[in-house]
């Protein structure tokens, strides 16, 4: 059987689709319902943000009355520092969007470090802490939420796809974890 939306299917299976990939993007917008239907049986869900211009597949959580199926993708687990960095960047993007109309959100390494440092335990070896943060920046770079700018200074551009991954559900989930942690602490103290 021939599919008019084969282009979209292949591109989505390969990774994130952006609106600058003109041909694929147009195809995806046109056949959105078909593409969604295609991935439904294997519990993959199409995440499509039209205004920001990107789309990707993610694991659909099975609800209680559904048959429990094995997962096709694994969640990416982030340790404390990486989680913190994601929260810091997400907040920076929110502030940026609320303040000015420039499309690109650019943050310097120093800014990331100083915004992160506030939430780390006090230490005498700040240099080491800073190194750790910079290593974590590279991790976030690898996930794809940041891009290193090609300039003399150490600046990074925040990729807007971070909105799709660090979304309301994920942030709430993380908040709940911290709350539980804080309560347990209280009990043991």
């Amino acid at each position, binding site marked *: 059987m021939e599919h008019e939306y084969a282009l979209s299917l292949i591109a989505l299976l390969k*990774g994130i689709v952006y609106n600058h990939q003109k041909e694929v993007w147009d195809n995806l917008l046109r056949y959105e319902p078909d593409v969604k239907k295609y991935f439904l049986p294997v519990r993959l869900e199409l995440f499509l943000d039209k*205004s920001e211009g990107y789309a990707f597949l993610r694991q659909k959580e099975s609800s209680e009355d559904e048959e429990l199926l094995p997962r096709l*993708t694994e969640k990416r687990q982030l340790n404390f520092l990486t989680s913190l960095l994601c929260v810091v960047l997400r907040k920076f993007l*929110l502030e940026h969007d609320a303040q*000015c*109309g420039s499309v690109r959100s650019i943050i310097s390494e120093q800014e990331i470090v100083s915004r992160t440092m506030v939430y780390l*335990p006090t230490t005498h070896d700040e240099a080491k802490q800073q190194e750790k943060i910079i290593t974590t920046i590279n991790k976030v770079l690898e996930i794809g939420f940041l891009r290193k700018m090609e300039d003399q200074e150490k600046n990074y551009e925040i990729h807007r796809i971070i909105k799709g991954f660090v979304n309301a559900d994920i942030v709430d989930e993380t908040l709940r974890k911290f709350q539980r942690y804080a309560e347990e602490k209280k009990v043991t103290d």
Partner: protein
Amino acid sequence: MNYEKALSLYRNDKTLQLLRAEHFPLLVGFFYLAFKQQDKISYFQNELQSLLGDYIYSLERQGITDYNKPSLEYLLKWSQLGYMRRYYETADEPVYELSPATENALKWLEDLNKQQFVGTHSRLIQFFHLLQQIVNTTSGPYERIQQLQAERNRIDKQIEQIQQGNFLKPSGTQVKEDYFLAEETARRLLSDFRQVEENFRELDTQTRQTIIKSNLAKADLLDKVFQQQDYLWSTDQGKSFSAFWEFLMSEQMQEELEVLLEKINNIPAILEVKKEQTVDRIKTNLVDAGDKVNRSNDGLIEQLRKFVEQKNLSESRHILHSIEQIESLLMEHKETIDAQAIWMEIDGLFKPSLIMERPIFTVPMKVAFEKTAVEDGLSEADTNILFEQFYVDITALRNNIKYCLRNKSQVTLSELLHHYPSTKGVAEILAYIQIATGEGKHYVNRDQQEELIVENKDSRKIYRLQAPIIIFNR
């Protein structure tokens, strides 16, 4: 304007701050040279940086040595103080342009420094025409017809006069006066564009702030407003600008302007006083500047629409609230948090890997050596050659540059070679070029050449070579 207002201006106004700035002469001299004389609106960072480096260097040559910081530092400071706007467009390099405050200051300084005579007559007439225009366009139909008829009578009378041989040419003074007024208007119009852009940006920020502060129901309302029409274009600023743009882009206006400019350039009285090309280039410059406003405004509108999108907005508000809660929890427990634990789980991407596509296992080839015993050999090679390597010491060259830059902010390669004659010939020159291109702060001018002199130490032969002008900066 009372005392309080004056005090507040004195304290807060960016234009006044610039006029009192410590680097005032450098600022004004440089901005005038870089932006006004070149007729340029914006620069990339490296262009402006090397231009400022050259400017400081040329001042140094005149004996002015007050400015000894790297040029980038000045640029960053000036943008921080609001004399320039520094932002990213599409490239990875920031773009600089003058802020409206600076435009104002430059405009005012130019007025202050006026050498031409002050045309009072042309201004009065212009004032009169404006009043007439307001009255005429707002009057009722009956009055308007009367006005038009009066105008026709006047024109008829004029034609009659000329036909009778009474043709009055305007005096040279009058022509000059009108021309100066036109020139000034043109210049002002161009510098006002920065303000127009700034106004749009301010409107944008204000709208965003109102949306954030308003509750959901109000945001819902605003959402409808936005969907109707592009909000920014429907403000007074937007309407005036789009009328301007429409007029500028109309074919009729463009043709008319061409003809006018050509005729103007043939009037002797004007040739006499014309110093600058402002009026001639007005068309291109207006289109450039207007286009820039258009582009930046379209960007603003698009972003604003995204921002207002209902789902997006409420989600953003929710996320911000949650993040703030996370932050306060972290602050409270930051000494005891478990850094190794998994705190956030984000969606992983599905990456299919087709297992049958992978190549099957192949037994690696083992290389078998026939002779396994290793015996001592005897070397016949001349090892002296290892100790006579030809080697250019880049660190030493860097030190040479540093030494020369101790009391100067710039030094050219030819000067450098004058102080430290080349000992390794052309290879050393190449090493200098490598240093110059490898570090962003140095400048290579490929448009101009200079002659470098290299002496062979052994044969005492002198070689001349042509190279682009290379300037090392501190």
